[in-house]
């Protein structure tokens, strides 16, 4: 699904992560861990082409990420950013419905299918009670759930999430990890999320992507991962 070939990721001339070869599969949830400033967000931004690579390439479904058109890309990769837009008078339903923009016509009219998909994502995240509220009235945790619903609505084969659980309470955190894992399996998506919550992530029993703090390499640690190995690799 996603292939890295001799990829070097970073800002301007300071490389943060180098990847010799790595393939991420569809139907899997990957949790990305690493120290602060190790380049987790930069890596996610590189997969959607917001951050240009220092060298090498990233292939999505066999095709170089730089050769995707904007419209193709929006139908292939969705991204849940760690910040939420500060917009007044924006209803939760309207916000989630924006996820259908890559598919709607020039006037943005929603078809019945679009509405079904929107309702499904709302059901999946159990946020029906937030419908009709303004996004400016939500708590940080509710905003994260709403953002994830928008990403599901975008119906892409790859979903990237930048610390999606940062503001969630404990039960919501573990529930969300399990949910994303199930979505990856059931709908054959490739989902990558970055997290600082190592213990909770270990409970999820999925594969890890660990940024090695000393060698600046990205390692794939297949499930079941061992806590001591991850700690050694990423946080030593």
């Amino acid at each position: 699904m996603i292939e890295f070939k001799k990829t070097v990721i970073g800002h301007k001339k300071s490389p943060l992560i180098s990847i010799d070869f790595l393939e991420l599969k569809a139907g899997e949830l990957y949790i990305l861990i690493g120290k602060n400033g190790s380049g987790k967000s930069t890596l996610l931004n590189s997969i959607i082409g917001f951050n240009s690579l220092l060298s090498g390439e990233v292939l999505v479904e066999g095709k170089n990420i730089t050769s995707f058109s904007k419209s193709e890309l929006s139908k292939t990769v969705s991204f849940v950013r760690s910040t939420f837009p500060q917009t007044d008078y924006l209803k939760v339903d309207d916000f989630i419905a924006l996820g259908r923009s890559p598919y709607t016509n020039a006037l943005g009219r929603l078809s019945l299918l679009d509405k079904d998909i929107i309702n499904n994502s709302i059901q999946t995240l159990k946020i029906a009670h937030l419908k009709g509220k303004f996004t400016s009235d939500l708590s940080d945790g509710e905003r994260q759930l709403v953002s994830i619903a928008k990403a599901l609505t975008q119906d892409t084969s790859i979903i990237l999430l930048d610390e999606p659980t940062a503001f969630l309470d404990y039960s919501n955190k573990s529930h969300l990890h399990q949910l994303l894992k199930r979505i990856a399996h059931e709908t054959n998506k490739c989902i990558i999320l970055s997290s600082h919550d190592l213990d909770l992530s270990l409970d999820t029993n999925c594969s890890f992507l660990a940024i090695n703090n000393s060698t600046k390499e990205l390692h794939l640690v297949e499930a079941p991962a061992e806590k001591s190995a991850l700690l050694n690799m990423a946080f030593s």
Partner: protein
Amino acid sequence: MSLTKKQLYFLIIAGILLPVLCVVHLFSGQISIEFQDFSNSLFHYNNQDTNQIIVRELRIPRMLMAVIAGGGLSLAGLLMQTLFNNPLAGPFVLGINSGSSLFVAFSIMTGIPFLSSDFGIISSALIGAFSFGVLIMFFSLFVRSHVSLLLIGLMLGSFTGAIVFILQAASSSEELKSFTMWAMGSLQNTELSQLPIISSLFILGIIGSILLIKPLNTLTIGEEEAKLLGTNYKTIRLVIIVITALFTGLVTAFCGPIAFVGLAVPNLVRIIFKTQNHFVLIFASVFIGGAFILICDILIQILESSIHIPINAFTSLVGAPFVVLIVLKRLA
């Protein structure tokens, strides 16, 4: 985006209010004119009848310019606010008006007949608005904070204001008078023969904005999010700047600089309609913006017997306190 029944009703009310105010505006003024004269001036025009001449040469152009100035500036303000994701943006505070003013000052005060002709003034106002639009877009690439961009816009305004002062000091009394009259702002400088081209450009701008509804809706959640949803940001940004410059330049050329309408009306519209759906926001801004200037101008005509207030002064008197209210509400 969703459109509730309530929003639709409000939109219809605003859509009815505008033509009603147009009619009230036509009948207001120092000289009272019979309905008969109105219909005659339209359908059986007699160019010897003073009342019919007043209707055709003065009242209709003034009424239409009020609608175009209010609607155009409000829509320009809405587009700026959505593009920069900043509810306090507008053609006046971002200095788009001052671009027009500077270029118009140049063309009037150089004394070159071609430049000070109607065509010369209109083209300079449009070019001035567009180049300052591009300039503010360029600055927006470097500043992330809402307030910084507004400060840059205000600095652009002060800077061009200073240049205009210098030009005024160096110009003849005739040119000075002509520029001062323009800068006071007036809805009465337009002639009937100019209306077809002004109205066509106005309608063109509205059609352009309607075609942008979907990208504008995605831009409400910010530039990066809009890009993730497949919005071609750079193209859309350029089209928005062109349409904004068209409205601002057009209105500034014919009516002079009119402040605060572009900032205040879209905010008022969002407060009333409580939505980010640009289908609603675009039409409501045109209706309510047009209605706002019509009401201002009706009041100006009522007060005219005791005091003459230029339209620019009037919109600032009403608009500035409203903007302060919005800022206070946002801080609260």
